[in-house]
């Protein structure tokens, strides 16, 4: 990594402004030219439970988080109890000195399982079960401690600004923590004030108070805090950089791709996308009147699916966005879209299952489910994006696949992606193409919706088109779309639909199917959001002289068996990395490539993988010290 590789963590009870604190911090670092990789962790809770945000900052390209936290900014006790161990020697902890005596029992949101583990550690080191106790451990390790009384800062601030209301304003704790951090790492003050301005642009009075607090805390850190080995004073800005949140790739991708109808039912972590689309429902169109996206919040996911299909039948590019439990409800209609050759895009933001599982945590649990969803044999595409930037362009591809092959497309995303905040290259809409396939603008002569053709794809009319009348049914149908139970037509129709799977693997360009980052004796196969941490891990290994290959499989269904087989012919050891329990891609790989997976690196704690964890496991594999299943567990 570059000269700066710095990880900052902020934590606090849900609802205390952890997110906006992290946004301010990320924006400041990004404005100063750094690359950002941030991720948010939170409970399924509205207020009170522990949430935290880790932001990794570097002057080189980064794609992941790491295990170590260089600087922790805390304003409550729970953050210290849960994360003090993540700060290594030479790292720092900013904390509220008024909390010194707080015991673990006083923090009601500390669950017993965690407490038991912590108590064991404290007991073994002969420390009291208090903040002072855990901080002693940190100090002994060589961590710099920066105590500050948040209460005192606020009363000093109130005095200085002659605004007594500020005295007990704990809502400012997050801004104080951010500003103390920025002061400590010697970041310039200006971008901090600008960032506050932009975040509170609609509330100038609140912006003003926050700026006063920021100024005060920033100066406080500079004058009162001792030395800290890390300084982030800025670096060369990369051109055309944007700071994006997880769902921006798919939501802006949908606008650009011409998706004009989205139906959804609220579910974590998918609904942010729909809400964003609705808040940008009016669209600017080049040389034309304004366009719009109709976003409908439905009564359930079954309805979301039905409405999307209904809209798609009018020729509108239509989609929904959901997560595992919602997708489970969509399975029946998915088959309907399959048998009726309706182009739809389901953006599937996975989370940890089964059932409600870990509702706000990460998982790549639904790959096999997506591939096999729906009863009966019908064709579909399952396509997976590896990062936010990629997901923008992939959204365009998914709509094209849907239209060209007249087939439902499931676009695999996940919670790791949805709750990341990263810098990336500005999305380029001109790199998205729009191919509507055989969608008709007019119909001549007798029209048959499911006319038999050479490649099995029939010209597609749309509801309301002049002379384009057709029928659809969930029953088996003839060329017109009328019900038939004729055994010969059944064969023809099944063959017509299913032949599409081969067309997809034949016609979709290779580099859209699989991305190869090199193949070596040891080669990783993976899919989706593990891409970032894998890339970072193998790049560190490369610097140590260990070459590890990596192929990212994007087209999971239909599986590009021959292509994958040929890419991997020189790989001796195959390592499958996935955030699920059973190594789902591994199963698909084995079934299609007829080759065993040699090692699995799996994680199913609900927390995303760090590159540190992958690095450690890969190293163990290369040194022949690994188990066949390496199970990762980092993260609070």
């Amino acid at each position: 990594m570059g000269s700066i590789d710095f990880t900052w963590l902020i934590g606090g009870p849900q609802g205390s402004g952890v997110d906006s604190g992290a946004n301010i911090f990320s924006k400041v670092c990004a404005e100063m030219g750094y690359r950002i990789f941030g991720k948010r962790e939170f409970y399924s809770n509205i207020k009170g439970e522990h949430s935290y945000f880790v932001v990794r900052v570097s002057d080189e390209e980064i794609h992941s988080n790491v295990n170590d936290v260089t600087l922790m900014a805390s304003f409550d006790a729970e953050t210290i109890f849960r994360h003090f161990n993540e700060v290594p020697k030479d790292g720092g902890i900013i904390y509220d000195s008024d909390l010194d005596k707080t015991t673990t029992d006083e923090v009601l949101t500390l669950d017993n399982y965690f407490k038991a583990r912590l108590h064991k550690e404290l007991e073994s080191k002969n420390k009291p079960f208090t903040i002072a106790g855990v901080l002693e451990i940190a100090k002994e390790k060589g961590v710099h401690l920066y105590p500050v009384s948040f209460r005192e800062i606020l009363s000093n601030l109130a005095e200085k600004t002659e605004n007594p209301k500020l005295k007990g304003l704990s809502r400012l704790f997050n801004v104080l923590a951010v500003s103390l951090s920025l002061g400590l790492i010697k970041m310039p003050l200006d971008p901090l004030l600008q960032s506050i301005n932009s975040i509170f642009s609609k509330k100038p009075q609140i912006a003003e108070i926050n700026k006063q607090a920021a100024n005060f805390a920033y100066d406080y850190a500079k004058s009162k805090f001792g030395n800290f080995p890390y300084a982030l004073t800025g670096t060369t800005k990369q051109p055309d950089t944007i700071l994006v949140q997880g769902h921006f790739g798919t939501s802006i991708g949908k606008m650009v791709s011409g998706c004009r109808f989205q139906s959804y039912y609220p579910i974590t972590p998918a609904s942010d996308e729909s809400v964003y689309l609705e808040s940008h429902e009016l669209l600017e169109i080049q040389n034309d009147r304004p366009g719009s996206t109709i976003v409908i919040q439905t009564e359930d996911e079954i309805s979301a699916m039905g409405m999307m299909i209904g809209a798609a039948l009018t020729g509108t590019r239509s989609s929904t966005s959901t997560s595992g439990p919602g997708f489970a409800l969509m399975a029946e209609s998915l088959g309907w879209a399959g048998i009726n050759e309706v182009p739809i895009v389901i953006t599937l933001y996975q989370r940890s299952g089964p059932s409600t599982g870990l509702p706000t945590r990460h998982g790549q649990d639904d790959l096999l489910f997506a591939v096999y969803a729906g009863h009966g044999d019908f064709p579909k595409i399952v396509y997976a994006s590896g990062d936010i930037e990629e997901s923008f362009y992939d959204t365009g591809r998914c709509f094209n696949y849907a239209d060209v092959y007249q087939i439902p497309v499931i676009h695999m995303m996940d919670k790791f992606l949805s709750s990341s905040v990263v810098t990336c290259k500005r999305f380029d809409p001109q790199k998205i193409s729009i191919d509507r396939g055989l969608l008709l603008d007019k119909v001549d002569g007798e029209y048959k919706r499911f006319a038999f053709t050479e490649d099995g794809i029939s010209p597609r009319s749309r509801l309301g088109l002049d002379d384009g009348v057709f029928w659809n049914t969930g029953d088996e149908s003839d060329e017109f779309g009328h019900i038939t139970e004729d055994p010969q037509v059944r064969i023809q129709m099944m063959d017509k639909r299913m032949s599409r799977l081969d067309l997809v693997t034949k016609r979709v360009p290779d580099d859209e199917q699989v991305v190869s980052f090199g193949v070596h004796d040891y080669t990783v196969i993976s899919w989706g959001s593990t891409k970032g941490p894998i890339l970072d891990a193998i790049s560190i290994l490369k610097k140590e002289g260990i070459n590890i290959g990596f192929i990212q499989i994007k087209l999971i269904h239909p599986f590009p068996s021959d292509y994958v087989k040929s890419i991997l012919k020189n790989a001796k050891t195959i390592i499958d990395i996935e955030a699920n329990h059973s190594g789902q891609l591994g199963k698909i790989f084995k079934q299609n490539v007829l080759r065993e997976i040699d090692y699995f690196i799996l994680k199913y704690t609900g927390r995303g993988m760090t590159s540190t964890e992958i690095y450690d496991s890969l190293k163990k594999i290369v040194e022949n010290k690994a188990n066949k299943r390496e199970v990762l567990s980092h993260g609070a």
Partner: protein
Amino acid sequence: MALKLADYKTEVHNDWCPGCGDFGIVNALQMALAEMGIERDKATIFSGIGCSGKTSHFINTYGIHTLHGRVLTFAQGGKLANPEMTVVAVGGDGDGLGIGAGHFVAAGRRNIDMTYIIFDNGVYGLTKGQASPTLRLGEKTKSLPSPNTNYNVNPIGLAVASGFTFVARGYSYDVRHLKDLIIKAVRHKGLSFLDVLQPCPTYNDINTRDWYAGIDLAQESMERHSRIYKLEDTHFDPMVHYDDETEVNEKLSQALIKSLEWGNKIPIGVFYQNEIISPYSTRLTDKIPNYLENPPAKQRISENGLPITDVSEILDSLRV
């Protein structure tokens, strides 16, 4: 070229049982389309699953035969994306008030400008006569092993409570009256609901054509006593005339009370109509002014294979 009734018929073989009440409904629907002169390619019939689900194949307009219970979801999506299209959704009472009851209620809340017709016969015909949601408690139609243990759903009452703005009941053996009701329903600006009493000659041996005709009553009194009577022949006024809470509540409660009438006197006709409540399209145009002129199905999204949606303002706001 003016369209004739025959233009709305397909050549698809109709395999409903002889004497099925569904024939009357499909005829009335075709007659209504012809009378309104709606072009074949400007209407879509969405249907659910079951005998009534086949309706869309018998009508020569766009026809979408959907899934059990889900017809309203498909129909609403189609109408929202292409609001110029006339949309009629049809399905059985099991489809709409059993498995699809959630969608029924949610559709009422939206009030999208389309029509929903329930073929109401009290049984699940295609699966051999199990009790459906409108069958009354304690009734035992012929293929039930024991009398029905569930209370019945009141379709009119549920529609009124859910926010449908046109609520009516027809009878499948009074085809002309039903045709007129369908025309009123389609012309109504908002979500219209038609509960059509439809004898199932094979499985419902209680609410038969003879029963509706009051043959049993006639035997008692030696004269004809059809159970069916028309609301419009009484002083019943279903219309909400002005935007006033008392007026609305009065019309709602009168519809509900009327809907409870059953037994020897069964009302058909319009129970409730409210044109004051905004249709969904108005709610959309409030925030998307050109929605109706430039709906999703009509929007241009590309030129020469490249996108024309300008997101530069959004991307600029994300720039660092």
